[in-house]
């Protein structure tokens, strides 16, 4: 089973690489180069905050776009092009296929994020001449962005398992936007009463809590990130992704392939 999942995951990764998905790294490098003259005109402390904020935002935006737009076609494209037929006619379970696809795209995002992070640290080193403890703290921000990708890929995969790519893209984008305001929705639920309170609360638990995974500003200002938040976010991302994969499998296992 592990070998079949690994084969599907590697094929998904290879497809993304050969479809030139990693070309976004060039845009990221160009962005860093374009920022250089701007950074030269401001003070050293602000320079760092700006570089961290812009770099992490770019890592997040590029990664989210890749997660959604590759994620929504993970299953539907295979059905549409019928590349799935020779796969599922072999001793491959539909669950193995779904899990392999998930790991394949997660691996792509991991490599992409690692490459961008290296670019960021090189730029930071060139700017400040050294790397300190506060800079290591940025790694936590990057780690949380990766967790965010895991959640978004799970959602995109779920929508891809039963819907068309266009509808999946709309659903996934809507969930991403709503998830970015999950904290506000919970705050609203705490302030209101009656059925509205329960609806807001229920919705806030269904949509992904992406707001909690966003610590970019905090790491840019070298604020302390508690270990409990790291643990909570890790568990949350794992559980949420597992739930979306399970739902995707449930829907996909009943689906007739046209």
């Amino acid at each position, binding site marked *: 089973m592990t070998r079949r999942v690994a084969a599907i995951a590697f094929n998904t990764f290879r497809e993304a690489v050969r479809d030139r998905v990693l070309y976004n790294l060039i845009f990221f490098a160009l962005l860093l180069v374009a920022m250089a003259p701007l950074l030269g005109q401001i003070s050293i402390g602000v320079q760092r905050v700006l570089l961290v904020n812009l770099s992490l935002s770019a890592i997040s935006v590029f990664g989210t776009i890749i997660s959604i737009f590759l994620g929504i076609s993970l299953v539907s494209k295979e059905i549409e092009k019928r590349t799935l037929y020779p796969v599922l*006619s072999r*001793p*491959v379970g539909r669950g193995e296929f779904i899990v392999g696809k998930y790991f394949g795209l997660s691996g792509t995002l991991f490599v992409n994020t690692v490459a961008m992070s290296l670019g960021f640290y090189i730029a930071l080193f060139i700017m400040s001449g050294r790397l300190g403890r506060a800079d290591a703290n940025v790694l936590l921000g990057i780690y949380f962005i990766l967790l965010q990708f895991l959640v978004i890929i799970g959602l995109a995969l779920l929508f891809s398992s039963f819907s068309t790519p266009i509808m999946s893209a709309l659903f996934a984008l809507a969930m991403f936007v709503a998830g970015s305001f999950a904290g506000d929705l919970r705050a609203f639920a705490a302030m209101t009463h009656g059925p509205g309170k329960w609806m807001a609360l229920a919705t806030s638990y269904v949509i992904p809590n992406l707001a909690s995974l966003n610590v970019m500003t905090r790491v840019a200002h070298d604020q302390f990130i508690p270990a409990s938040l790291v643990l909570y976010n890790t568990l949350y991302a794992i559980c949420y992704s597992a739930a979306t994969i399970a739902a995707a499998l449930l829907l996909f296992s009943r689906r007739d392939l046209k």
Partner: protein
Amino acid sequence: MLAVEILGFEKTYAAGFWRKKRKVGLRPLHLDVNQGEVFGFLGPNGAGKTTTLKLLMGLISPTAGSARIFGRHWREPQVRSRIGFLPEQPYFYDHLTPIELLNYYGALSGMSRDDLRARIPKLLERVGLADQGTVQLRKFSKGMLQRVGIAQAVIHDPELVFLDEPMSGLDPLGRREVREFIESLNAEGKTVFFSTHILSDAEALCDRVAVMNKGELRGVGVVAELVSQKSGRVEIVWQGKDAIPAVQALHAECHVAGETVRASIPESQLYAALDALRRQQARLIAVNPVGGSLENYFLQKLGVPAEAEQ
């Protein structure tokens, strides 16, 4: 032992805007395929051939019914590793090369890396793609993709191979190569189940055929018996239109193409017809007995009168 036993497969689809209407894809189907035979699954477009193959491959679920492959439930993973499948008009990951694709499918079929390393070059050689192994599939023609499709279907050396319209869209040379490949599989003792609407291919390759139409099995026959049946008629071919009225008077039906006339007559009228041709000084080209043909059987099962009977 039976290779395939289809036990009442049935498929209906929800149709219409509210999905309340039912569209029949396959009526209850009972069919056996013997081990080691080449079995042709015939029928016009929309007959239910691909639906049956998709059901057997587990790509869609039956509304009712079940199947056994080599005596086991058709959806068992152990069964899957003993079968190969070529879908209709196959499309593969075009970012891969044939070697990468075969490695991928081989790994999914449970083959070891050593086995794959030994088998892939031989298989590419066999399908005529030995020097295209490292070219991405996006640069392949339809015929080359069909060869890759056949290679992936047999990469794990299955005992039973399902081919859905394997000759569809191929030029005569490509069709001949596929025919030869099916013959070689059969010579190795493998069971081949293939769907087609090209009757000459089925007649040349199959031990038995089943005829489907409108989601229903219309008949199963042994090809050798079907083609050896005597019809009691002979076909005469000659040049010279002047002889036509005399031959038609012998209850013959004549087809004219240019100067050449082709007539099907009762066997008892053969010598009378030859006399008539001699009297008119027509140039005799051929006299052939009209045997039973797969085409006649196919048309009969579809409820369409054969040409000779029209």
